[in-house]
Every structure is written in structure tokens, then in C-alpha cells.
């Protein structure tokens, strides 16, 4: 029998099992269980409700399957341009938020010292009365603009309206100064228009896609990832610049493991090669751009040899990739990135990317940056607040135009936080309304945020989950999840303009309430009821739909209405969206020259960390949206906690060498200790930096699942570098040491 192989053995096994099967068949007939019916898991909805997602801010169209009053599953709405019938894991995992046992269930009023996270349950009436009294007191003593709204998410529109009629312009989302703000500023300086969200880029038709530190595929902006896969399927090539071998790098023709913080040097060297070798789109630039001669002079000495010692990328590779990128123009897309607050010179880096895109002639062209349009929607007819109805408007403390950030286009969340410290700004913030954003994890330097909160007369948190920020509030208002509420219509600028609807799939659970209700009731209690005439969120939407000439029933049934197709690129007859004062793409920025800043980006070396430390880089995992989803038990199944990525050689060279899977502590330059967290010892990252997925290491008592899992990037981000152009808070300026988890400091 020596010759019997596994194959043979299996055949014998199968034959004998066949006999067993016959026997079993007889037996089961006797049991009355004969036959093998195909079991149906019973998750198909008896009702299917179209709505749009809120697990991240892409707001994909979703079909919610509801069976016996429960949402059983969420699938993509095939008609919706942002999902096209497909959902990312977070979108599919939205039920994990709806049925999270840790949800805020009742309004809460603080019952102990602020920040001790001790609350008493209250009725809505009592909680809203307390908020109204507090707000009116602040208004009486400090004026209405001493109230700030921090917000993130689609449902914030109701509270932004509240602020408008209340009389405060101090509305900020961390998505600007803590995220994509520098990019908006950099592109705005170059083209006169920011990039916006969802990004109007044509990944689908590009032939070469260049990612500068963007880890598309790990950040799951649905449409972009769909297009990425389609582009790869059609043979598009990737150039990925990242200190980490990202998923995208794994699919790239060229991976450039750049030294962190030196991207501008690489971008200048690429421009040098492209201009020296005349690989730029001269015709396009002659037609649309200004400042080419200044740019040529500026990059003349910025050769690949110059960039080599700075970036760690060999000159031949810089040259080869520059030629490769230029070879596909104009269908050569320099991806604008999204989270851009890295080193404090981020608006200039974004500008360098924007300038490179212009050299390729890709702005306004197929396979590059597209021209998009919005679906025209009529507003709800409502009495707008009267000008001058409030106390004389004082200079806006946080408005960066007055505070030294010349090109910021939105209010800075970090600016509002600073303005809460007495005497810091022209006037102090005295009350915060915090809607759907966990400021403890979103703003850098937690200590500063907490100090600012201690100066407040009132802080209200409106949220779905008991995030850290709720623990610091005076009143916590439990909002219904996106699957339980109606919100305003969506109509972002997109390739084909569209309007989408958010409608409740099920009734709100517990004592949670939809945002429209909370804002309206609060409005009534502060004497602004006339500004909230709608009977419900649904009625608000129906009125807008009717005024816009959209059939309400169709919209409610389909979830989305498409507008007329528009020309998206020059090839289709569109004009590139250039809105600078000069009407040209500004390769050399007069505006920056006037302001005393570099009119063309220059490279300045980032500060190095203490010896023996690693630069802390942070990013995303496809299953999570910051800290918002880490308590979602469904999404936690494939990814329950983060791990710290360490280069294998560097891990071996540590005073106490670290093996893959070891528990370690991370200690930053200011002595903050985080962990224990598992080490992912890997070849996939440079030896001078470590990487953590953001959103873990929660400390809030109420987040019973997420609490204590992994390490918090937010806690380790004690330092930040402010972008002098737009006030963005660069966070890749923190450094950590790695210690074994057992050792005490």
C-alpha cells in the first residue's frame, strides 16, 4: 500500500461515506427529515426602504431591508451614483450601529463634576429646558455668537440652521482644519476652487494614477474604490508614494517608500524632470495657466539628484516615474488625497500636487479632474433670520481671515476650541453644541481640548453613542441613527447631478429622537419656533421635492433622482473649472506673494524626532470610520483592534527586540503612554516610522466593546504643527518609542 496517495485515499473515503449516506437516508426518512431543503436565512425584507448611508461621509445610496420591524440587512442602491448597488463593509455593517447595545438611550444631565462622566437620566423636556436656559444665559451675558457648533455628518444641517437663526457664525467641522482643509486651500490657490467632497476625479478613465500618501482601498470611499478596480481592470498603472507598503502600493507598478515629510521635494523633482525634458502639456498651459516661466526657474535646480538624499528615492527612479506619469497625460491623475493635515506645510504640498496636475494638462480633462454639477433643489420656504436682529455683529474670533490664516475658507474647529480659552481670541466661546463629532479624538492635543471645555458655561453633546466627548458634556441628547430618521436631501456636486433621500427605515429605538425634532424643539424653547415651521423631517423634504418639481412618491420609492447629464471634461465640451482672479491656473501665486508666503512651494525639512524614536503615522482601515465605528460589533469582527506596524529590521534592533504579535507600549515625546497594543512586525513599512490605524484606544466607559482596545493615535498626538496658510493642524510631527508591555516607566 506504499503507493497509495492522498488522492486515492480520499476516493476510498468518499466511497465508504457513500454507503454511510445511504444508511443515513433511510434513518432520516424514519425521522421524517428526508430531503435537503435549501434553507433561507430569512433576511430578505418584507419592506425595502431606500435611504443613504452615514457610516462615513460619502453618503452612498442604501436599500434597508426591514422584516418584522427590524433592519435585517443593508445593500447598495443600484440606482444611486455613489454606490451603484455596492456597499463597502461599513455601509453593509450599519445594522451594527443601529443595534449597538451601548447606544445613548435617554437624555442625560450631568450629576457630578464636569468630565467625571456621571449623569442622571432626564426627560426630553427637562434636558431641552436645561439647554435652552443655558444658551439664553450665554446670549444675555456674552451675545449669541459666544455659542459654537462643532459638527460632522449629514444630520448636522438642522443644527446649522439653528445656529443661523440663533445668530452665531461659529460653526466648524473638524473635517476642514483637521482633515482636507489644506488640500482645499492648495487647490483653491491654484485653480480658484477647492476639490470638495466627493472628489470630482476620473479614476475610472485614468491611465496612470499617482497616490501621494493616500491609501485608497484602505480608506473606502466607495465610488473611488469602485473606479480604482475598474481602472486596474482596464490596465491603468499606479504610482504610489507612501512610507508604508499600502494595499494600493501592492497593486502599483512603482512603489516609492519615501521618507516621511519630504513629498514636496519629490514633487519638485518630478516637475524638474517634466519641464527640463519638455514633457509638460505646453499647449494646455499656454491656454489656461500663468506663471510657467517662474515655475521653470523655481524648479531648475530641483533635480532628482537634489531630491535623492532628502526623500531616499534613487534619482533614476524619480526620473523614470516622472517620465511614466507624463507619458499618460492628460489621463494621468495626481490624486488630491483627502486627510492632508500632516506636517504643517500641507497647503503648499497640496499646491505642488495641483501644479503637477496642471503640467500634465489633466485638470478638466478625461482621466483627470472633472467638471461636476449639482442637482438644483429649492429651499423650504421659511422666514430667514432678519439682518441686525441680534446684537451688533462683532468680529468673528475664529474666522481665520482675521486671525492670521489668510486662505482658510471654512471656520476652524481647532480655532473655535482655542477661542474658548479666555482672552485668546477677540471674544470667548462660552457654550458648545457638539453634534456627531468626538472632539477628544478628532482635535489634536487632548489636554488643550479638555482645558477649553472647563471654561465653558454650557456644553451639549448630540450623539448616537456615548463617545468620550459626551462624558465632558453638561447635557447629552441621544439622537436616532440614520436608519431611524429623516434628514434633508443630498445633492452633492457629481459627474451626473443627482438628489438622494434619507428616510427612516424603522422607528427610533429607546428614547432617541431625530435631529430635526431636537433642533425644532430647542428652537421653540429659545423663542425661535417661527423659524422651524416644518411638521417633520419628512414634510420638510416633501415640500422641497414638490417645489423642485420632483415626484415625491417616485423619490421615496427609488431613493434617488438623476439630473441631466452634463459635460464633465474638455473632450466632451466642458470648460475646466478655473475660478482664480486672473482666470488662469496660477502656477505662481500672486496671492501668496502678496501675503509674504512662497508663491511656488519650496521644500523645508521636517523636524526629526528624539534618537531611538519613530515618527508616528496614522491612517485608516477599510472596516472603520475613525473612532465612530470601533464599537460596532459587526465591523469589529474582522478588525477589532489596531496594531502598530513596525519594520522587521527596526523591531529586531530595538533594545528589547519585538516579535510579530508582541504586546508593546508606545511612549511619545511628551511621555504619553498608549497601549498595550500588538506589534505588526512587517517588511511593509520603512524603519524610521510606525503606523497606527486611527480611532482605537477608546476610554469612554459607555463604549463597552471598544474601550481599551488598541492604541489611541489621538492620545499620542500631543503636538501639532499649524499650517500658516489655512490653520490646519499637522499631526505627523509626533514620535514614539516602543517598549515591552510588561515594563513600567
Amino acid at each position, binding site marked *: 500500500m506504499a503507493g497509495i496517495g492522498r488522492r486515492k485515499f480520499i476516493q476510498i473515503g468518499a466511497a465508504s*461515506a457513500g454507503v454511510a449516506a445511504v444508511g443515513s437516508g433511510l434513518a432520516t426518512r424514519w425521522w421524517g427529515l428526508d430531503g435537503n431543503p435549501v434553507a433561507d436565512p430569512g433576511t430578505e425584507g418584507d419592506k425595502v426602504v431606500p435611504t443613504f448611508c452615514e457610516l462615513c461621509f460619502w453618503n452612498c445610496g442604501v436599500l434597508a431591508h426591514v422584516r418584522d420591524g427590524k433592519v*435585517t440587512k443593508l*445593500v447598495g442602491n443600484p440606482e444611486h451614483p455613489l454606490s451603484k448597488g455596492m456597499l463597502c463593509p461599513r455601509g453593509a455593517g450599519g445594522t451594527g450601529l443601529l443595534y449597538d447595545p451601548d447606544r445613548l438611550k435617554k437624555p442625560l444631565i450631568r450629576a457630578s463634576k464636569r468630565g467625571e462622566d456621571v449623569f442622571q437620566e432626564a426627560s426630553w423636556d427637562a434636558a431641552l429646558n436645561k439647554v435652552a436656559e443655558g444658551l439664553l444665559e450665554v446670549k444675555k451675558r456674552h451675545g449669541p455668537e459666544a455659542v459654537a457648533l462643532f459638527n460632522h455628518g449629514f444630520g448636522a444641517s438642522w443644527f446649522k440652521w439653528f445656529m443661523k437663526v440663533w445668530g452665531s457664525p461659529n460653526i466648524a467641522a473638524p473635517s476642514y482644519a483637521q482633515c482636507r482643509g489644506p488640500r482645499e486651500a492648495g487647490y483653491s490657490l491654484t485653480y480658484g476652487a477647492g476639490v470638495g467632497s466627493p472628489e470630482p476625479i476620473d479614476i475610472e478613465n485614468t491611465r496612470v494614477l499617482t497616490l501621494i500618501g493616500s491609501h485608497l482601498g484602505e480608506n473606502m470611499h466607495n465610488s473611488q*474604490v469602485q473606479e480604482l478596480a475598474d481602472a486596474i481592470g482596464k490596465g491603468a498603472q499606479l504610482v504610489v508614494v507612501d512610507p508604508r507598503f499600502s494595499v*494600493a502600493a501592492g497593486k502599483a507598478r512603482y512603489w516609492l517608500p519615501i521618507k516621511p515629510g519630504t513629498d514636496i521635494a519629490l514633487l519638485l523633482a518630478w516637475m524638474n524632470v517634466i519641464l527640463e525634458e519638455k514633457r509638460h502639456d505646453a499647449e494646455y498651459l499656454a491656454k489656461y495657466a500663468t506663471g510657467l516661466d517662474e515655475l521653470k526657474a523655481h524648479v531648475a535646480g530641483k533635480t532628482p539628484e537634489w531630491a535623492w538624499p532628502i526623500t531616499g528615492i534613487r534619482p533614476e527612479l524619480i526620473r523614470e516615474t516622472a517620465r511614466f506619469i507624463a507619458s499618460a497625460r492628460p489621463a494621468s491623475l495626481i490624486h488630491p488625497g483627502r486627510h492632508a493635515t500632516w506636517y504643517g506645510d500641507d497647503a503648499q504640498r497640496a499646491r505642488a500636487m495641483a501644479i503637477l496636475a496642471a503640467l500634465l494638462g489633466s485638470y478638466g480633462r478625461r482621466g483627470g479632474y472633472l467638471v461636476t454639477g449639482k442637482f438644483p433643489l429649492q429651499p423650504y420656504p421659511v422666514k430667514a433670520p432678519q439682518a441686525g436682529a441680534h446684537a451688533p455683529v462683532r468680529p468673528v474670533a475664529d474666522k481665520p481671515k482675521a486671525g492670521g490664516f489668510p486662505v482658510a475658507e471654512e471656520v476652524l474647529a481647532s480655532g473655535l476650541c482655542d477661542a474658548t480659552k479666555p482672552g485668546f481670541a477677540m471674544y470667548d466661546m462660552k457654550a458648545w453644541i457638539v453634534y456627531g463629532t468626538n472632539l477628544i479624538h478628532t482635535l489634536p492635543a487632548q489636554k488643550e481640548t479638555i482645558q477649553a471645555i472647563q471654561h465653558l458655561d454650557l456644553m451639549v453633546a448630540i450623539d448616537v453613542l456615548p463617545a468620550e466627548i459626551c462624558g465632558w458634556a453638561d447635557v447629552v441628547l441621544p439622537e436616532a441613527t440614520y436608519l431611524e430618521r429623516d434628514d434633508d436631501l443630498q445633492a452633492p456636486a457629481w459627474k451626473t447631478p443627482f438628489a438622494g433621500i434619507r428616510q427612516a427605515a424603522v422607528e427610533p429605538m429607546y428614547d432617541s429622537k431625530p435631529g430635526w425634532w431636537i433642533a425644532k424643539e430647542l428652537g421653540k424653547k429659545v423663542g425661535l419656533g417661527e423659524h422651524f415651521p416644518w411638521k417633520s423631517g419628512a414634510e420638510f423634504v416633501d415640500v422641497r421635492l414638490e417645489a423642485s418639481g420632483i415626484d415625491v412618491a417616485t423619490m421615496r420609492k427609488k431613493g434617488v433622482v438623476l439630473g441631466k447629464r452634463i459635460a464633465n471634461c474638455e473632450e466632451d465640451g466642458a470648460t475646466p473649472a478655473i475660478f482664480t482672479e486672473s482666470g488662469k491656473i496660477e502656477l505662481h501665486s500672486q496671492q501668496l506673494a502678496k501675503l509674504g508666503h512662497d508663491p511656488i512651494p519650496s521644500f523645508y525639512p521636517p523636524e526629526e524626532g528624539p534618537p531611538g524614536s519613530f515618527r508616528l503615522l496614522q491612517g485608516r482601515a477599510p472596516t472603520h470610520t475613525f473612532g465612530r465605528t470601533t464599537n460596532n460589533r459587526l465591523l469589529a469582527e474582522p478588525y477589532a483592534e489596531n496594531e502598530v506596524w513596525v519594520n522587521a529590521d527596526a523591531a529586531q534592533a530595538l533594545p528589547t527586540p519585538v516579535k510579530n504579535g508582541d504586546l508593546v507600549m508606545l511612549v511619545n515625546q511628551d511621555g504619553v503612554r498608549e497601549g498595550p497594543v500588538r506589534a505588526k512586525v512587517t517588511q*511593509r513599512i*520603512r524603519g524610521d516610522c510606525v503606523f497606527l490605524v486611527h480611532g482605537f484606544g477608546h476610554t469612554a466607559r459607555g463604549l463597552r466593546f471598544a474601550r481599551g482596545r488598541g492604541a489611541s493615535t489621538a492620545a499620542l498626538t500631543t503636538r501639532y504643527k499649524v499650517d500658516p496658510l489655512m490653520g490646519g493642524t499637522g499631526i505627523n510631527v509626533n514620535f514614539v518609542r516602543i517598549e515591552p508591555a510588561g515594563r513600567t516607566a
Partner: protein
Amino acid sequence: MKKRYAMAMDTRRCVGCNACVIACKTENALHTGGFRDWIVQEVSGTFPSLQMEIRSERCNHCSDAPCVGACPTGASHVAEGGVVMVNKQKCTGCKACIASCAYGARYVHEDGFVDKCTFCLHRVQKGKQPACVETCPTRSLTFGDLADPESPVTRLVRTRRFKVLQPETGNEPNLYFLS
């Protein structure tokens, strides 16, 4: 013609996002800890010369499935289109099938029976795609009938370079990994 269901999984398109995993869990109402599909990232090489393959894996629905042979009660069986299924009423949870599977595709359900991917046969019978295929944002997954020469899955297997996992088992797996 007898149907032969199979799946082609495009490793070039896949980003390993786990949407297939979550969609499977909600479609099939799986309990916490129960997975019928999962993501594998395989990295080779040393910094900075690295390669990575990402796969969405599940039961291979082998044409010569040892799990079916190993099952003493007939719970594991071959259903329509060659789909390997478990009849939970007949399953005693003895785990003989788990031991015989080369792919780790089976697990013990919290209710005691053995569970695994069904290619969402309950959906396929109604003309729908499996839940993982339907949601996949990268369209990495193609499900269909290999007996039909014109089906997308047949065309992919005919035109693209592919591999199957552990062909040496001789089980004739029906998941084709395109590269």
C-alpha cells in the same frame, strides 16, 4: 445541461476591504464569531521589493469534496450546481468534515451544527447573485455556471491566468483566483 457553479476571484481588483465578509454575515444572519468567507493578504519579498496578493476566500465547493464523504449522517451533501451544503437538521456537529477540509472553510455554529458558505444558493435559485458578489465594491467576485460556455465566470477562467488553492489535494476546487 447540468449546472456547475463556480466563482472567479480577481486578486488584482480586490483591496481586501471585507465588504464580502460583512454582507455574508448580514445576509445569512450569522452569529458573532461565525464566518463563511474571509480575507487573506499574502506578502512576499523584503523591503522595498515586496509583492502582495489579496484574496477573498470561502468554501471551494470542491467537485470531489472530502467533507461530503467524511460526513457520517449525510448532512453534508452536494446540492444543485455542485454546491456543497450542510443540512443542519441532519448534522450532529461531529466535526469530521472540518477535519477533512483543506481550506478551513467550515466552523461550528453556536447552535451546534457545522456551517459554511452555500454560494447563497437560496438567492441563486431566485436568480440573484450571492451576497458577497452583489456588494463587492471592486467587482472582484464573479459567480456563475462553468457548464455554460458563455457565462462570465467561464469566460474569465478561459481568458485569464488563474490558480486554485491546494490543487494537490485532488479535490477539484471551484474557486478560481485570477491574477
